[in-house]
C-alpha cells in the first residue's frame, strides 16, 4: 500500500507540530503582540513606518544572503559593499543624472559580487574566505574613495533620491516597498523559476546537480553577483534616506543578514530556506531593536537579547527537523 510505505511529513495534527513548523511566523506574531502590550507608541504609524525603513537596507542584503546560503555558500562582503557602494552612489549622483547613477551603482555591485563568485565557483575558494577578503577590500576602498568622511550629495531639480526614499505610498515607506518587491520576486523565483529551483538543487546536493547536467559553476557565480547587486540597491536606499554615502555604513550588517536568514529557518548547509521566512527573520530582528529602543534599553543589552533569540529560533528548528 502506498500510504503504508511512506508517510507524509507532519501528518500528525495538534497545535504543537503546527507551531514548530511555522515557528518563524509564530515568533514574529508573538513579538508583535508582546510589543503592542508593552508600549503605547509601538502601534503608531510613525513607529511602524520607522521600523520598516530601518529594516529595509538589511532586509535587501538578507535576500542576497539567502540565495547565496541556499547554494551552501556564505557572503560576508555585503556589509562592506553597502558602504563602498553608498560612497560610489554619492559620488556618481553628483556627476550623472539619477537613473544613470543608480544603474552604474547596481552594475558596480554586480561586478564586485562577481569577484567573489569567480573566486568561489571557478577558483574553488571557500566562500567564507573569498567573501571575507572582499569584505576587507570593499571597506578599504570605501574609505579611500570617500577620503575617510561621508560624501554628501546635493538636491537638484525634481528628480531626487531623497524625495523617493523618505516618502510613502499608501502609508508604506517607498524603500520598504522596494524591499517587499524584492522579497516577492525572490519568492516567485525560488518556486516557479528554473534559476531558483537549480540553486536549491545545488545546495541540496552539489555532486548530484553536477551529474544531472547542471552548470553548477555558472549558478554559483551568479548568486554572488546577484548578492552584490542587491547590496547596491540597499546602498542606494540607505544613502537616499540620509543624503550621504559614508564608509562607515553597513558595519556588521552581513552578520545581521546571516542571522535573519538563519532565524528564517534556512540551513547553512544549503538547499533549505525561503524568502518569506527570511522576511520574517528580518522583521523579528528589527522588532527586537525597535521595542527595546522604545523601552529605552541601551544597545549593549540589546545585543544580548538578539543573540538569545537566534539561539532560541535555531533550537526550535531542531525540533522541526526531527
Amino acid at each position, binding site marked *: 500500500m*502506498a*500510504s503504508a*510505505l*511512506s*508517510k*507524509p*511529513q507532519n501528518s500528525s495534527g495538534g497545535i504543537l507540530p503546527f507551531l514548530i513548523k511555522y515557528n518563524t511566523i509564530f515568533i514574529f506574531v508573538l513579538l508583535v503582540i508582546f510589543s503592542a502590550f508593552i508600549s503605547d507608541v509601538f502601534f503608531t504609524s510613525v513607529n511602524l513606518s520607522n521600523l520598516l525603513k530601518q529594516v529595509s537596507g538589511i532586509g535587501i542584503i538578507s535576500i542576497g544572503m539567502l540565495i547565496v546560503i541556499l547554494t551552501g555558500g556564505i557572503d560576508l562582503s555585503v556589509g562592506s559593499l553597502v558602504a563602498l557602494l553608498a560612497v560610489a552612489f554619492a559620488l556618481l549622483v553628483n556627476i550623472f543624472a539619477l537613473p544613470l547613477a543608480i544603474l552604474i551603482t547596481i552594475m558596480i555591485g554586480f561586478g564586485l559580487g562577481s569577484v567573489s563568485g569567480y573566486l568561489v565557483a571557478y577558483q574553488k575558494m571557500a566562500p567564507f574566505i573569498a567573501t571575507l577578503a572582499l569584505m576587507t577590500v570593499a571597506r578599504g576602498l570605501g574609505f579611500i574613495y570617500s577620503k575617510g568622511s561621508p560624501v554628501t550629495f546635493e538636491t537638484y531639480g525634481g528628480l531626487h533620491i531623497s524625495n523617493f526614499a523618505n516618502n510613502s505610498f499608501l502609508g508604506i515607506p517607498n524603500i520598504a516597498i522596494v524591499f517587499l518587491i524584492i522579497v516577492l520576486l525572490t519568492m516567485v523565483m525560488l518556486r*516557479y*523559476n*528554473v*534559476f531558483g*529551483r*537549480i540553486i*536549491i*538543487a545545488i545546495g*541540496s*546536493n552539489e*555532486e*548530484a*546537480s*553536477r*551529474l*544531472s*547536467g*547542471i*552548470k553548477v559553476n555558472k549558478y554559483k557565480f551568479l548568486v554572488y553577483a546577484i548578492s552584490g547587486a542587491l547590496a547596491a540597491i540597499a546602498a542606494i536606499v540607505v544613502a537616499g534616506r540620509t543624503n550621504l554615502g559614508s564608509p562607515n555604513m553597513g558595519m556588521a550588517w552581513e552578520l545581521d543578514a546571516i542571522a535573519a536568514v538563519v532565524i528564517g529557518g534556512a540551513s547553512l548547509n544549503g*538547499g*533549505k530556506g525561503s524568502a518569506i521566512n527570511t522576511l520574517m527573520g528580518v522583521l523579528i530582528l528589527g522588532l527586537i531593536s525597535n521595542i527595546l529602543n522604545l523601552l529605552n534599553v541601551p544597545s549593549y543589552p540589546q545585543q544580548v537579547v538578539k543573540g538569545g533569540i537566534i539561539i532560541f529560533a535555531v533550537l526550535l528548528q531542531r525540533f522541526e527537523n526531527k
Partner: protein
Amino acid sequence: MQNANKDYRLEMTGISKSFGIVSVLEKVDLKVKPGEIHALLGENGAGKSTLMKILSGVHQKDAGRVLLNGKEINPKNTHDGQVLGINVVYQELSLVNDLSVAENIYLHKLGASQFWMNWKKINADAQALINSLGFEIDVTAKVSHLSIVQKQIVEIAKALSEDPKVLVLDEPTTVFDPTDTQKLFDNLFKLKESGISIIYISHHLEEIFKIADTVTVLRDGKISGSQPINEIDTDGVIKLMIGRELKDLYPPRTVNVGATPIFEVKNLTAKDTLVKDVSFSVKGGEVLGIAGLGGSGRTETAKLIFGADQKKSGQLFLKGKEIKTNSPVDAVGYEIGLVSENRKEEGLFLPLSIQENISVTNFKAIAGKFGFVNKEKENNNIQNLIEKLNIKTPSAISPVKNLSGGNQQKVALAKWLSIDSKVILIDEPTRGVDVGAKVEIYHLINELAKNGVGVIVISSDMPEIMGIADRILVMKEGSIYGELSKAEFSEENILRYAIGKPLKN
C-alpha cells in the same frame, strides 16, 4: 564447551549477522592457526567484509562466539580489536592525508603516551619499520604526496606497528605491480614465520595458490567450503564461489536489437583514473552488461563517458557522429543519462520532493519564457512517471528521503526517462533494493531497450547481469578483458575473465 582447541589462534564459530531483515552471515565458522596464511574468498557481497568487521569490532555479531588464543573476545569497536591484537588493512585506505607517514603509522599511540611528541623517536621507528618491509618511503613526507602504492604500504606498516596477533589484509595487491606484490609476499612469509596469523582476502586466485595454507570460501553469507590449499585447485575454488541457480527474477523479453550501433566508444583513456583504452559499442534496443570485480574500473568508465571524469584520449560516437562530453552538461545535452551506483550521494536530492528530483534534468522541456516553469506540464510529466514506474508515494511533493530504497532508485531512473535519453548508463541498478522493486526495475530496463534506447548496465551481481544483459563485457584493471555472448554466459566465465584467465573449452 570450553575445551577450545589450542591448535588455533582464532576460532570464530556460528557467527550470524543481519542488517535489518537482510541476513548477511549465517552460522559462519572460521578457524585460523598461528603462523598460517588463511585465504578468505567469495563473490562481492558474500559476507567477507562483514565477517572481518565483526572480528575487528566495527560490527557486533548477532550470534556465535569468537575465541582468541582460547579466550572469548567481544570487541565493541576497532580500538578494542587493536588492543587484543587484531589489525585489519581495509580495501579503502584510511590514512590522514595531511599528516606525515610517521604520524599516520603511530596515530593510534599519539594520544596515549606522553604529552610531548618525541619526533626523533617516532620518525626513527617509522623509518625502521618501512625499511624492514623493503620499501623506500620517506616517513617525514606528507601522505598526500605519496602514490597509491606507497599509501597501501603505509597502511600495512601501520597495522604491523601494533604488534598484531591476527592480521587481516583485504585485497592488498589491487594497486600493486608484480614486483611490489612479490615484496609483500616475502613480508607475509616473514610474518608467518614469526607466528602471526594472517587472513588474506583476494579475488586473485593465482595469489592464493602462491601464499595461502588454507582456503575458506563464503557464498551468500554461508561457508561453502574450507580446505587445505593442496587439496583443491582453481576450478574447485570457483565452483565453491558460485554454484547458485538463477532464480526466476528476470523477465524474458523479445530482443529487437537495431542493426547499427547507437553509441560507440573508441580507445577511451582516463586522465585521473585507471580506465585505459576502452572500446565497445551498443546498439539501439540492446542491453549491454559490464561486469568485473570491485575496483576494475567499471564505474570509472561510466563516469568518463558521461563527462564526470576527465578524459585523456579516445572518441565517442552517437548514431555515427562524433560527440565530445567534457562535462555532464554535454552528456545530458546529447541525451545520455547516468544512474549512479551511489544514489544517495550522487543521484538524489534527498530532502527535496520527487518532483524537484525528477525535473532537475528536464527544465528545458518544462520551462517557458525567462525560465518560468510551466506547472501544468511539470505536474503531468511527474504524474506520468510516478504511474509508469509505479513509484509508491503519497504524493509528488513528498521528500525523497522518506521513500524506500527501491522507490528512491526508481526516482533516480525517472530523472533520465523524463528527458527521453538515447543512451542510459545504469551503475548497480538494484543495489539496496528489495526483490519486488528489483523485478520492476528489470522490466523498466527491458522497456527502455524495447523503445530503442542503448542501455549499459554495470553490475556486481552476476545472476542479475546474466539475467538482463544481451552481451557482457568483463573489465579487469581498467580495460576490457573479454566479451561474453549470451551463449557463453556463466558465473564461471565472468569470474575467469575478471581475474584474467582464459575460458575453459
